[in-house]
């Protein structure tokens, strides 16, 4: 076939990236048109932050070294930022892909000249953009509505940036892996949401991490979420709060190691297991 050479040239790596970006735009638009995802993944942490800030406004969350009381909003902001990364990354990705497997979207894409790499660039792009917007809104509402003091040291914001990016990447990749768990698109939310919910309860998102029994803390520390919440606390809480953490200090290396291991393991698993459709089905 004489047409093969020019055709092959058109399918260069640049095309994979260009189509990936086109997918990302398409996915982001689709995301904000789905009322239920916008509520349960995008606005949910904001709702919880508001509820906790109002409900526990009289609660004692300790004081800063200057003697100012730490408010419920300040205390819960890092937890909700970590939850947002988990929801936007893992929950959104796992449910989305499981549904697309169920409703024939993946089968249609499998028949189109689209590389799975472009598909995932689109998905991860969507997660990155929505998670960033979500974090920005959480921080803005915490600052403006609840008067939460934000860190002024650029070092803190640098920590925020890498913990956030590592968290989003790890959660997205694990979401791809978990998308294979539901047996149908219909059961996707029923299978994924309980996993995410349990993880949030044991990882110090809703319940103060230091209040959990030590054995449960050790279990939670196997998973990335506890480390993401830890990292976010290190950014938004006074340094003196490190005393409440396991080991009595901010363990940033621990975040990088645990999330890094999950990220690499997740990438390998996704590469080995992802299929557009089951070929022998």
């Amino acid at each position, binding site marked *: 076939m004489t047409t093969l050479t020019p055709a092959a040239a*058109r399918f260069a790596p640049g095309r994979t990236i260009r*189509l990936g970006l086109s997918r990302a735009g398409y996915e982001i638009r*689709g995301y904000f*048109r*789905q009322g239920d995802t916008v509520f349960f993944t995008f606005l949910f942490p904001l709702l919880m932050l508001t509820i906790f800030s109002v409900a526990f406004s009289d609660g004692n969350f300790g004081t800063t070294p200057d003697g100012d009381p730490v408010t419920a909003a300040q205390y819960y902001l890092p937890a909700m930022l970590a939850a947002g990364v988990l929801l936007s990354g893992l929950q959104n990705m796992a449910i989305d892909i499981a549904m697309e497997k169920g409703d024939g979207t993946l089968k*249609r894409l499998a*028949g189109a*000249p689209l590389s799975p790499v472009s598909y995932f660039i689109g998905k991860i792009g969507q997660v990155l953009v929505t998670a960033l917007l979500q974090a920005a809104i959480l921080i803005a509402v915490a600052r403006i509505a609840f008067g939460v003091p934000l860190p002024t040291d650029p070092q803190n914001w640098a920590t925020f940036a890498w913990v956030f990016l590592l968290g989003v990447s790890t959660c997205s990749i694990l979401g791809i892996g978990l998308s294979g768990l539901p047996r149908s698109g219909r059961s996707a939310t029923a299978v994924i949401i309980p996993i995410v919910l349990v993880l949030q309860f044991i990882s110090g998102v809703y319940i103060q991490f230091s209040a959990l029994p030590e054995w449960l803390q050790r279990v939670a520390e196997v998973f990335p979420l506890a480390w993401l919440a830890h990292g976010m606390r290190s950014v938004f809480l006074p340094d003196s709060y490190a005393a409440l953490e396991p080991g009595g200090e901010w363990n940033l290396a621990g975040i990088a190691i645990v999330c890094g291991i999950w990220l690499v393991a997740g990438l390998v698993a996704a590469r080995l297991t992802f299929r557009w459709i089951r070929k022998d089905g």
Partner: protein
Amino acid sequence: MTTENVVEVRQLRRSYGEFEAVRGIDFDIRRGETFALLGPNGAGKSTTIEILEGYRRRTSGEVRVLGVDPAHGGLDWKARLGIVLQSTGETGTATVREQLRHFAGLYPHPRDVEEVIAAVGLEEKANTRISKLSGGQQRRVDVALGIVGRPELLFLDEPTTGFDPEARRRFWELIRGLRDEGTSILLTTHYLDEAQQLADRGGIIAGGELMALGPIDELGGADARIPIVRWLDRGVLREERTHQPGALVARLAAAGEPERLEVVRPSLEDIYLSLVGESAAEQLEGSIA
């Protein structure tokens, strides 16, 4: 294998455990022709078409689609195909125009999106979300997505299910237009009039075997198309197949006006039903023996 054939299938077999869904079929589709694959549900039609599309593996046999083994077809191969799946069930949040623009962007030489929207008659729904369309309109979006990449070979798996008669006629016009532009088409359908209207050649598949193959007007062989004369002879219904029905009728009429006289030319549907019926009877015998 020659480049004159866009599809070549030799001794294709596919089994699922003990069950043989496809039992060694052979056929070709020539460049530029419309080929209809007919058969009842569960006959092996969908398994065959999904093997050609690269969705399923085969157990044995040789298959070439545009000169490529579909089990190893890459992106450049997929760019030359258009696939309209049997059912999608997708209820996307994208509008018709957004969806078509997005998919057009995946192909190297797409058709003009507005022209495609007009060709499937969805101009008035171009800005409507696909999830808000009726079943028949969603089906037309499927067809539009199948042709937007300007395919050399188009797979249409029961494309007109859920169409009203008017929409079906318009769809036929669209398919004839594609054929005139040189697109090769593999069509499966339950509507035999559709196959008769659109296809140049066809095959009838039943029980995983090809029962008939050839030009659509000659399927089943010349013998299956011999006209039938029926009449009532002293209370008994008689029928005779003859190439000269007029002569037979004249002979009968010479002996007095025959009761309930009719001359029938077997339609594609009659031939189809008799072939599919034979296969079902054979299978029944096989399962008893």
